[in-house]
């Protein structure tokens, strides 16, 4: 059966427009945002600096060197050395590995928990919704820093070896981070489930697992990408705060936060700023890049999404 309206179109051979795919468009819009690209570029630099950088440093395997304690920046040690004679630049790179890993890991975990619970609550509503959202409400009622401090104190009791402390920190940050995300996802799902394509899956008699994973989930992926990106910055900030107060990643493992702890000694604070200012700047530059990228992504993915 031929539809007369379609005739002129169907005779012409239509070339598929490559840019018309959703992610192609997103990429196109993102590439136009110079400031987001600057953020992305700097993030790539930080990643290379932290993960590849140590391979070029002659000081990685030396560690403590009692002959070179507290040296000011020089040609051999670009950022000087600390009180144990360790090269600050190398430590900054190794700390970057941990801080970035914690940020990414905490983001992945809180996005997973938040998305899963948010979808379940929004789709099934009723009792599931009540339970999940009440827990989220309660968690969001508690002040963030005391909550993190309590969890840090509790988990310190598990006697985790220092090189695995970062996983504990990830776990803590994701426990604090998921409720906000679950709320966002839930409200999105509540409106999506009334749309026709979900009603169609009802009519087709699809199983719930397929409905949720194949049809609902892809539609909240843009939301997850944006809030996930932005949450990495928050996680890195929280990690640094916890580590600064000795409750996050603890020495001898380095994280940007616990490197700043050296500012607590008056003499280091006043006379040796190379010990604590570079890690602070590293946190600052990383988080600002993540936020610029996340902001650009938000505009690129959904230009109508409300900016706040």
């Amino acid at each position, binding site marked *: 059966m031929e539809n007369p309206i379609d005739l002129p179109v169907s005779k012409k051979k239509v070339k598929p427009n490559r840019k018309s795919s959703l992610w192609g468009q997103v990429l196109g819009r993102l590439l136009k945002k110079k400031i987001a690209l600057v953020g992305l570029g700097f993030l790539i630099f930080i990643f290379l600096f932290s993960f590849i950088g140590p391979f070029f440093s002659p000081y990685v395997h030396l560690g403590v060197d009692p002959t070179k304690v507290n040296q000011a920046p020089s040609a051999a040690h670009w950022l000087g050395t600390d009180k144990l004679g360790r090269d600050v630049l190398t430590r900054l790179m190794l700390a970057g590995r941990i801080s970035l890993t914690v940020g990414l890991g905490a983001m992945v975990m809180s996005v997973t928990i938040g998305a899963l619970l948010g979808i379940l609550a929004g789709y099934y509503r009723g009792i599931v919704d009540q339970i999940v959202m009440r827990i989220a409400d309660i968690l969001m009622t508690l*002040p963030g820093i005391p909550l993190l401090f309590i969890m840090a104190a*509790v988990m310190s009791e598990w006697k985790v070896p220092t090189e695995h402390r970062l996983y504990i920190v990830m776990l803590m940050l994701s426990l604090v981070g998921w409720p906000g995300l679950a709320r966002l996802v839930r409200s999105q799902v509540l409106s999506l489930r009334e749309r026709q394509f979900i009603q169609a899956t009802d009519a087709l008699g699809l199983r719930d697992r397929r409905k949720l994973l194949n049809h609902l989930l892809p539609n909240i992926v843009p939301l997850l990408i944006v809030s996930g990106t932005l949450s990495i910055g928050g996680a890195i*900030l929280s990690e640094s*705060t916890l580590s*600064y107060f000795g409750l996050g990643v603890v020495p001898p493992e380095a994280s940007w936060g616990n490197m*700043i702890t050296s500012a607590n000694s008056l003499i280091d*604070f006043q006379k040796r700023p190379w010990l604590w200012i570079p890690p*602070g700047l590293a946190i600052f530059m990383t988080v600002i890049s993540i936020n610029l990228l996340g902001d650009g992504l938000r505009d690129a993915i959904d230009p109508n999404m*409300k900016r706040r």
Partner: protein
Amino acid sequence: MKSYALKRLLYLIPTLFGASVLIFFLYSLVPGNFVDADPNLTLERKAELYALYGFDQPAIQRYFIWIGNLLKGDLGYSLQFQRPVGEVLGNYMWSSFFVALASLILTWIIAVFIGVVSAIRQYSLFDSLITVLVFAAMATPSFFLGLLAIKFFAVDLGWFPAGGMITTGSDLTGWAYVKDVAQHMVLPVLVLTMLGIGGLARYFRTNMLEVIKQDFVRTARAKGLKEKVVVYKHALRNALLPAITLFGFELPALFSGAIITEQIFNWPGIGAIYMQAFTVRDYPLLMGFTMFIALLTVISNLIADLLYGVADPRVRLK
């Protein structure tokens, strides 16, 4: 509206109850307690104190004693200060409050100004510069900003004292005292303001951009009103209105103290007291403080939601 408010008030009860359960049992999981933290005590004295403070009872029983007292308005007895928790919180709350209030006022004034100017000059140099500064403020860890402020303004330049609330050893009265405290307040207020300004300025910018596009602003311009009148009288008023809900959210921050900033500046506020209580495991004070903030948070959320309906009658509350 009234029934909505009542319903929301009733909803607070299970949330606060859940929060109290979570707070109590989380703190009971924290290793160590006040008595064990003191190495000078003999075993017998320890046992005596355990019995006195009720540490020997099971957690469930202690929870019900705590919540029972809480319902009567009794927050418990601080082990470290040997005074009722309510009294301790009341004493230190005000020094936190003045810092928070000063920075709140400053934040709002500067944020409104920045928001308006960057909205009417959208994409100008000023706008981009402000956007970058706003992002910068949101990306700085609060403790690092505090340390930098001390380093530059207190140590290097010597303009302001580095910490505390009064000059050590001084006993000033009257105006001299006020001046001394004000000088000590400058840096904490500066840090809190810088941290808070970002989000708010962006919020005002968005609101202002939306309002400026609307018909009544065009009408005001068409009538031949001066641009200043259009912007500050017609547009700004309407852009400010939705922001009154934000005032609701600021309530907990006014009283709860800024734990990290107070710690860095050694400001004797409620946040610094919390940190101190945490190190000596003064649980009644810790739980009382956390519960107090939880209460403030739910109330402020409620106020914000109600104000939302007042600010914009198109929003139907149900």
